[in-house]
């Protein structure tokens, strides 16, 4: 076995939400620059995996392990997991009324700089790079001066997640249904940004039901989650067959095989 140490190493992760066990046992490895697609019926535990890894207080880890670059994620408070390089794009990003987008992102970046003992960003340098990032994503510059997600449409919120992703440049990004609510151009922007960051070494876990986007993302692996366990692992073919026949059939076929 000459596999390099994975960037993300999840072993036998078990997670409760309230009294209910949602993830029974999940194990997966993701290498730098790799992209893993996570599929599964509603309620199969996809979002729970992201929330648990990111440290949401409502998701309590009952057992197992999660290492990011060898660091034990589960021992860290949420903000330190983010500083360690974990980014979660929210399925329904909340708003932060009155706080300007560019200020929010700069605060986040500076928090990470500070954690690494680096100097805070110059406000003008930051604004220049933020404007460029917005332009690359096809977002109006005015979005930077608007309060975070306040009055944004669903699609705009998702694009705003992309903007943050592109500026924060994490080591591992978990995109939870980034495509939902997005128009065609938005989906194209997702693909372009993912390709760019991947070439720079960012690894991705992408939760999606949208085959066309999944195909364009050229995943290294496709996993099907079922009742809190990884039921099937495969490649694009698995995604295509799920898209064709649905999760119920996939479950039945897997049981037969």
């Amino acid at each position: 076995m000459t596999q390099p140490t994975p960037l993300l190493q999840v072993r036998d992760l078990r997670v409760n939400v309230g009294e209910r066990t949602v993830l029974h046992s999940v194990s997966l490895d993701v290498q730098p620059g790799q992209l893993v697609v996570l599929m599964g019926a509603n309620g199969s535990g996809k979002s729970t995996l992201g929330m648990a890894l990111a440290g949401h207080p409502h998701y309590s880890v009952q057992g197992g392990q999660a290492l990011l670059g060898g660091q034990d994620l589960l021992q860290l408070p949420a903000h330190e997991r983010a500083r360690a390089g974990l980014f979660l794009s929210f399925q329904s990003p909340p708003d932060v009324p009155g706080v300007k987008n560019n200020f929010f992102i700069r605060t986040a970046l500076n928090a990470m700089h500070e954690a690494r003992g680096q100097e805070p960003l110059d406000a003008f340098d930051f604004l220049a790079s933020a404007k460029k990032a917005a332009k690359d994503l096809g977002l109006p510059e005015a979005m930077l001066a608007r309060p975070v997600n306040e009055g944004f449409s669903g699609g705009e919120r998702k694009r705003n997640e992309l903007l943050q992703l592109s500026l924060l440049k994490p080591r591992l990004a978990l995109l939870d249904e980034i495509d939902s609510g997005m128009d065609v151009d938005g989906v194209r922007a997702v693909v372009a940004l993912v390709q760019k960051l991947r070439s720079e070494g960012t690894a991705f876990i992408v939760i999606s039901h949208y085959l066309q986007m999944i195909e364009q993302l050229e995943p290294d692996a496709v996993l099907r989650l079922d009742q809190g366990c990884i039921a099937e692992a495969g490649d694009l073919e698995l995604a295509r067959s799920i898209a064709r026949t649905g999760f119920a059939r996939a479950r039945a076929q897997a049981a037969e095989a």
Partner: protein
Amino acid sequence: MTSETVNLGAPDAQPVQQAPALEQALARPYQHGFVTDIESDSLPPGLDEDTIRAISRKKKEPQFLLDWRLAALKRWRAMELPDWARLKIAPIDFQALSYYSAPKSMKDRPKSLDEVDPKLLETYEKLGVPLHERAALAGVAVDAVFDSVSVGTTFRKQLADVGVIFCSFSHAVQNHPELVEKYLGTVVPQGDNFYAALNSAVFSDGSFVYIPKGVRCPMELSSYFRINAQNTGQFERTLIIAEEGSHVSYLEGCTAPQRDENQLHAAVVELIAHDDAFIKYSTVQNWYPGDENGRGGIYNFVTKRGLAAGKRSRIAWTQIETGSAITWKYPSVVLRGDESNGEFHSIAVSNHWQQADTGTKMIHLGKNTTSRIVSKGISAGHAQNSYRGLVRVNAGAEGARNHTQCDSLLIGPHCGAHTFPYVDTARADAVVEHEATTTRISEERLFYCEQRGIDAQEATALIVGGFCQAVLEELPMEFALEAKALLAVSLEGAVG
């Protein structure tokens, strides 16, 4: 005195138990120093006509002012402590207070920053208070060659050139008695309320501003004030008069925490705006709020009112209230001039065991008068925060309009927010709108920030800053940043 009676002489002192007299005398710090004449600098506790006469004599006041004070005392004696606010106030023994003490002599003050409570200095650091201001704020004895004095002199010259009078109230009494006599008590009458009557009887000092006709005051009356307003005493009196077509922005207080030996503060502020005049009055109140357990802290019982007397006159109050154990304060505008406008923008933060009952009154008398109220209340810890507002439209106020936005933010499970909006209108055509929201700092928002690498403490500050943005924007630019820092410091430890 019951055992619950607050010792008003010194906020930090324990309530006096029945300790033997000798022990008491020994425990008391040596007060006299090398000042031999200390007796004549302060009056013994107690309040009667003789007290008033003594104060007036010490300040060498004209007869009209002595008479005015005596009349106020008479009214005050006939009044009862108000208890309608949603506040728990320990009984106050008004006869145990001393109503006059001259400013502390240089010898009694700390000699350098080394002698100042390190906790206080730490807070200055967090707030980014400039180094040269810290000493003055901490009450360190500073020489006359201190930077700010020369700055002050420059300011004074600039103001004098355009005819603006900006001085202490005592100075105005001596040098502009006709203005004081004409306007004093015209907006807040002596008998307005219990604390206003008390202030009218015993007020120590304060500020006086007069802006002549057509003059736009060449500077914010703030930077100057911030470093020079030491020891104005517990019964401040402020009077601002803006003549026709004039314009002034006045800023009171500062973000740095202020300590004071007097626990009770009962100030009165009166503003008068004539035709087309504009007065903007901003307050940052950060008096000592007491400790985490609710011990000590200032009682801040203030009456502030502006009279928009002239046509198209405008008065805008902006306040950031983070300090004091108890705040009881309703900056108001009486809209007498036709087409006059009143605004009230407020942020009130209460943490730990602080109590705030604050809001405004907009009294519409003139035609086509407009008013706007934006109130942001934030409670954390065990604090209670109430917005109390009155919008009154009188029979003659044709075409009056008001809009009120009143938002409360709760942090943690033990605090409370309360809203008491009163609307009293005598006209069917009045447009009075009220919007109110109460929210918590939601876990989802907090987690969103944390997921972006921002820790809970900073995330709270960020969310609170955003919540208050609409009011912060009303503050003078350089001050808005400091105020944001102040909000963060005030809520430290509220989350996480």
